[in-house]
């Protein structure tokens, strides 16, 4: 087990480097110029631009820039925003908690509602309530989350007036409920379907028959024997989903005007603030990598048949 974790952590290094390099090179190798973007429409002296680039290290070859960035990163330096002169670390530490909160709410919503719905349908596969769930999940998967966001905003904010259409700067927890539901709805549909399939499949298995033959009470048969087995694929999915929720938050934050990571990435993209974008994406990648490691380890706990080689 310990060796396995060590190996996985080692494997994470190339993936981490690769992902950051990928984002880094997309940010800097593609056309578009942060310094020019800073100037906006005005015409600026090309010499002045060159000087500024040199100062920021943007005249170096890409690999060198990346190296400098990495070195900084390991010293806890995420770089500095060109326009505002603020350290990117500041911006991240301000925005990240909001997004993490949003993603966590969405995650909890997904887990609780999704699994309950899936179990509810899976226990009675091919009945009316199962079909109903299928239709509901199909709709949730089909409607893009920004459409869902607008619909939520339209009904709950404009028509019913239950919530404010925009989330305030502090982003208090009750304000984040609607955005979290919107953000989590796609995952919810996947979790519900996965749970449903898993439950329905395991329900037919031989060991469930054994559990009945043992004379166990129904809540124990379902609660222990069925759930322990059915949750294995669901947990696997949920692990990778946490990263996806953080990434998906960009869109939701845009609709509800949440000043989180998505908002900042968007802002940074518009101004070609490479350091900010790369910093934030890097963090999300790290969260994703750690989450998938945790899931793999959890997988072994849940399923003793898995052996780590």
């Amino acid at each position, binding site marked *: 087990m310990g060796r396995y974790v060590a190996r996985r952590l080692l494997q994470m290094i190339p993936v981490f480097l690769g992902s950051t390099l990928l984002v880094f090179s997309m940010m800097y190798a593609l056309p578009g110029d942060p310094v020019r973007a800073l100037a906006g429409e005005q015409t600026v002296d090309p010499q002045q631009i060159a000087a500024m680039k040199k100062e920021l290290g943007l005249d170096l070859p890409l690999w060198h820039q990346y190296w400098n960035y990495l070195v900084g990163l390991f010293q806890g330096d995420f770089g500095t925003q060109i326009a505002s002169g603020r350290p990117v670390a500041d911006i991240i530490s301000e925005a990240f908690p909001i997004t993490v909160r949003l993603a966590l709410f969405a995650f909890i919503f997904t887990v609780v509602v999704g699994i309950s719905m899936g179990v509810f349908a899976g226990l009675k596969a091919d009945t009316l309530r199962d079909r109903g769930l299928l239709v509901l999940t199909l709709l949730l998967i089909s409607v*893009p989350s920004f459409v869902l966001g607008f619909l939520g905003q339209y009904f709950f904010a404009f028509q019913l007036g239950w919530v404010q259409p925009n989330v305030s700067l502090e982003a208090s927890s009750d304000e984040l409920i609607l955005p979290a539901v919107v953000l989590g709805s796609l995952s919810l549909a996947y979790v519900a379907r996965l749970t449903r399939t898993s439950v329905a499949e395991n329900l037919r298995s031989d060991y469930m028959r054994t559990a009945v033959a043992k004379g166990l009470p129904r809540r124990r048969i379902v609660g222990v024997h069925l759930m322990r087995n059915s949750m294995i694929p669901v947990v696997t999915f949920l692990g990778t989903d946490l990263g996806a929720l953080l990434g998906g938050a960009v869109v939701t934050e845009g609709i509800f005007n949440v000043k989180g990571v998505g908002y900042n990435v968007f802002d940074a993209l518009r101004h070609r603030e490479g350091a900010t974008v790369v910093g934030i994406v890097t963090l999300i990648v790290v969260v994703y*990598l750690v989450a998938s490691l945790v899931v793999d380890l959890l997988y072994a706990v849940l399923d003793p048949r898995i052996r780590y080689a």
Partner: protein
Amino acid sequence: MPETLKETPAGTSAEVTAPAPAAKVGKPRSLWSDAWHDLRRSPLFVVSAVLIFFLLVMAIAPGLFTGADPRYADLANHYLQKPKWGNFFQEDWFGYDIQGRSIYARVVYGARASIMVAVIVTALVTILGTVVGMLAGYFGGWIDTILSRVTDIFFGVPFILGAMVVLTSFEERKIWVVILALAFLGWTQIARVARGSVLTIKQADYVMAAKALGASTTRILLRHILPNAIAPVIVVATIALGGYISAEATLSFLGIGLAEPTVSWGVDISSGQEQLRNAAFVLIIPSVMVSITVLAFIMLGDAVRNALDPKLR
């Protein structure tokens, strides 16, 4: 990664459950003809096929559905004019947008860009992903290690976020830029599915037999592995196609996908959000079109999966 995990990659999303196509011993019908037999009876398939047929016709020949020009703006007469729900297939059926353009015409003409993006991205992604997945799965060893790590790298970057980074770099976002950006980031899912599928098929007796008979690697890959490993890939690709329609719309909504003067659902959704309060239909109608199209492809994917994998029923 532990062996068993490799075969059910943690990252494969919910729609990919147990893809191994069942080898039906002693049945004269092949997996495919069996699947086709089941498909024709599936209401899911019939409904989605009819929908997709109409959407494709709309994308190829929008002129069949409307005579109106989607770019013709009559601000004076039609500014945000409400839909006339009774006027089926008329210019004013769905009302007019803020520039006085017929929403019905725009929705009809918008199908082409949206569907074209999704279809081409899916084709590219399927080809690239299948090749990578097959090579990694079949050859194993260091080839697998490298290809799997590369897949992991691309998988680690959040899809929409990555696409945003790529797309903001381009001043002018032509349709092919959007296509390449989505394909560049999207192939990993197929690669993982194809790899898992090949790993299972590789162990099959008929592959062993072909090897023992001295078939060349190319022949084994193309004649034996590919046809048997492709079923789960097709299912995932079909569902992904719906996802790309949604992704194109999302990027356009964020203002970094397709842009005017291209006519697309995403572009209209993007411009419609300003009027959500007073004229929600401007936003809702193209959104509904996107949703219906995504729904059609996801339903098709579901139907195909059910047909190919009877175990799941």
